[in-house]
């Protein structure tokens, strides 16, 4: 008798307030991919830095996705993996803005942790770098809008949009509103309107 193999669901090591974990949760939802999650006590317990978690990710960082027997780290890398596996339409034609989400947006991510959780860091410097990144994205999306495109890389939403979105929608946690950024205000709402969109604390999900 042939026994069917029960597929194992991807497992996300998750922290509900993490912008990086949210990128993964959001894409999983948009793709309609079921998954299991393990709550990791990033704060106040600092569990990722502990020995047990470092056996899962030596970097001591979130998110981590276990899928197909592979352990993936770094939110952007996980987005690429999920898009390749489930729906290549989500892959962007170029890497510029996905890289930007991982690199230039890191200052906003840090500024948010300093403001929110009182973690150490120079808030004024981080905010300034965060504003710089938001302006660069605003300029780009403003140009895209003039050219008749709604999304950062091509004529449809890709993982570049998903990688950028949490930083824009959560900038208020770092004390930066969207008043200066009319194009981002419109773009972030388009993201919220995607079918199967989910929010997170700080990003209400009805619109």
């Amino acid at each position, binding site marked *: 008798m042939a026994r069917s193999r029960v597929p194992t669901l991807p497992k996300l090591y998750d922290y509900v307030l993490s912008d990086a974990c949210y990128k993964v949760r959001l894409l999983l939802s948009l793709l309609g991919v079921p998954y299991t999650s393990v*709550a990791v006590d990033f704060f*106040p317990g600092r569990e990722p830095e502990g020995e047990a978690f470092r056996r899962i990710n030596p970097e001591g960082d979130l998110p981590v996705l276990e899928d197909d027997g592979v352990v993936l780290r770094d939110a952007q890398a996980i987005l690429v993996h999920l898009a390749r596996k489930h729906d290549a339409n989500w892959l962007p034609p170029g890497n510029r803005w996905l890289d930007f989400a991982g690199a230039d947006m890191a200052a906003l991510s840090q500024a948010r942790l300093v403001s*929110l959780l009182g973690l150490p860091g120079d808030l004024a410097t981080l905010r300034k770098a965060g504003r710089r990144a938001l302006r660069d994205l605003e300029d780009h999306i403003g140009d895209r809008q003039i050219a008749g495109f709604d999304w950062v890389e091509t004529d449809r939403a890709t993982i570049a949009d998903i990688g950028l979105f949490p930083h824009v929608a959560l900038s208020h946690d770092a*004390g930066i509103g969207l008043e200066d950024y009319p194009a981002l205000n419109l773009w972030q709402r388009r993201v919220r309107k995607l079918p199967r969109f989910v929010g997170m604390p*700080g990003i*209400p999900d009805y619109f």
Partner: protein
Amino acid sequence: MTLTPDQAALDQWYVLGALRDFPSGKTRSTRLLGGDIAVTRRDDGIEVVGEGRALPVRTNYDHLWTTFGTPARDLFSLPEAAEPDRRWIHCGGVHVRASGLRLIENFLDLAHFPYVHTDILGSEEKPEVAKYEVEQRRDVDELWATKCEFFQPKAAAASDEGQISQYMYRVVSPFNVMLYKTPPTAPNRWDVIALFVHPLDEIESVAHPFMLVIDDTSSDAEIIQFQQMIFLQDKIVLENQRPLLLPLQPGRETPTRADLSSVLYRRWLKEKALTFGTEPRTDLA
């Protein structure tokens, strides 16, 4: 900012954090009511220095408490802390750019559940706030809201389905509040969810959610994440209320029947003549 001159605010007990936030042999500096504070933990005890003098210290309920003034009472009692089967869970201090009084008032509010905690603590299909009771218990100087009921799709970390939750609120001081709520796993007991607010100054606060719960199914991390999720959903509201300070002047806001606990909380603050964290009034001589 300098230490507030508001005597009513000075004469209260304030949380400075969970005890474990203050490692032995180290000095940590912070602020309270606009004044500077230094906390030093030694093997033989813990010292709090505020504005250059040693301040009274309490270490009840796994937290560090102090005061700049002379509180009329000792720190509030929390009888549930003596029940051996409760889990004590620290959810971590979260910084909020708002008056601590706004945090407490929001904690007392039921009507926002369907909109701010959608499909968790409330649902848009059932937004009605049923009549509840609020009383000022003068013997203990506490404010109690009782007979609160609300339909909740996911009332707690361990919930599998919706329930009509019963709530009681107990405000023990202007910046400290407890919520008693029926747990999904033990309908004859009350979970205790406390919110201790550490006001750094008038418009910046650190919120310390602390739980004494009956839950033998969820992990600590799951309970913490659930509580942090709820609190962070509130944060976007708290930082966007205008003014950030709590208005006590009649007519500045528009309360309805569902806001009874807010109305009585503000009246209680006025009775205490507390002004720290409140909007300056123009209607008084």
